């Protein structure tokens, strides 16, 4: 079993701790208590993992049959489309999903990470720049909304997308499908180990 190698840090901490810590601070400023609890949990979980406090939870990468994943995804997409959003039922689905996806990514790192090629470096630069641009645009809209008190003068992504998700099952289905496919891509289930 390979040792868990630490990646480069910022001021001695893994960059993800900073990302989640800063997001936690932003949620506090926004006064969104639900999100504050979620990001406090997330930050604590990442920190605990980095400090090696959760070693007892380590396991090998789970191999789940693709048809099980496909059936699970379809069931989830249909359930989340039909169940009204912002209800206890939708919250329970997400709360139930969280430990499953965490278990699927919690496996032990395997082998040594190969040295990055130049093309990989530029890919990282390009996508990080893009992600930062999206975050800055969204957060600027959020701050301007708070400052102006006008929800639609500077709409955030949530303000634009939420009515569409909230009012139609088709909107929920399309959002859920894209969201699940993105998750599937991150879990890399269809890729060879």
């Amino acid at each position, binding site marked *: 079993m390979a040792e*868990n190698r630490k*990646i480069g840090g910022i001021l001695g901490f*893994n960059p*993800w701790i900073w*990302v*989640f810590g800063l997001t936690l601070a932003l949620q506090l400023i926004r006064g*969104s208590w639900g*999100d504050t609890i*979620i990001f406090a949990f*997330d930050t604590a*979980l*990442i920190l605990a*993992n*980095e400090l090696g406090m959760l070693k007892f939870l380590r396991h090998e990468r789970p191999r789940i049959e693709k048809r099980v994943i496909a059936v699970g995804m379809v069931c989830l997409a249909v359930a989340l489309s039909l169940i009204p*959003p*912002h209800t206890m039922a*939708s*919250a329970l689905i*997400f709360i139930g999903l*969280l430990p499953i*996806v*965490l278990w699927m*990514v*919690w496996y032990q*790192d395997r082998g040594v*990470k190969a040295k*990055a*090629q*130049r*093309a*990989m470096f*530029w*890919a*990282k630069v*390009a*996508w990080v720049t*893009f992600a930062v*641009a999206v975050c800055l*645009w969204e957060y600027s809209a959020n701050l301007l*909304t*708070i400052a102006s008190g006008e*929800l*639609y*003068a*500077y*709409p955030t*992504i*949530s*303000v634009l*997308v*939420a009515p569409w*998700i909230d009012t139609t099952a088709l909107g*929920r289905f399309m959002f*859920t499908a894209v*969201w699940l496919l*993105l*998750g599937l*891509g*991150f879990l*890399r289930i269809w890729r060879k180990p």
Partner: protein
Amino acid sequence: MEKTLKGLTTIAGYLTLVVIGVTLFVMTSKPGGKIAPMTALVDRIMHHRTTRIAIILAWWWVGWHFMVNTVRR
């Protein structure tokens, strides 16, 4: 009128970012270019458990945010 213009400018910004993201994804999708495909980048960054946990938590929160949270500002 001014409010509508501000709103449209903000939306135009999002659409521009979507176009840039899709263009970047498509133009870099073939291996061997100056910029590696995003799929190869995901494979690489998902090597470390901390990164895997962070990305899957962020992904989960996006779903929670839209399907469970009530959007308010």
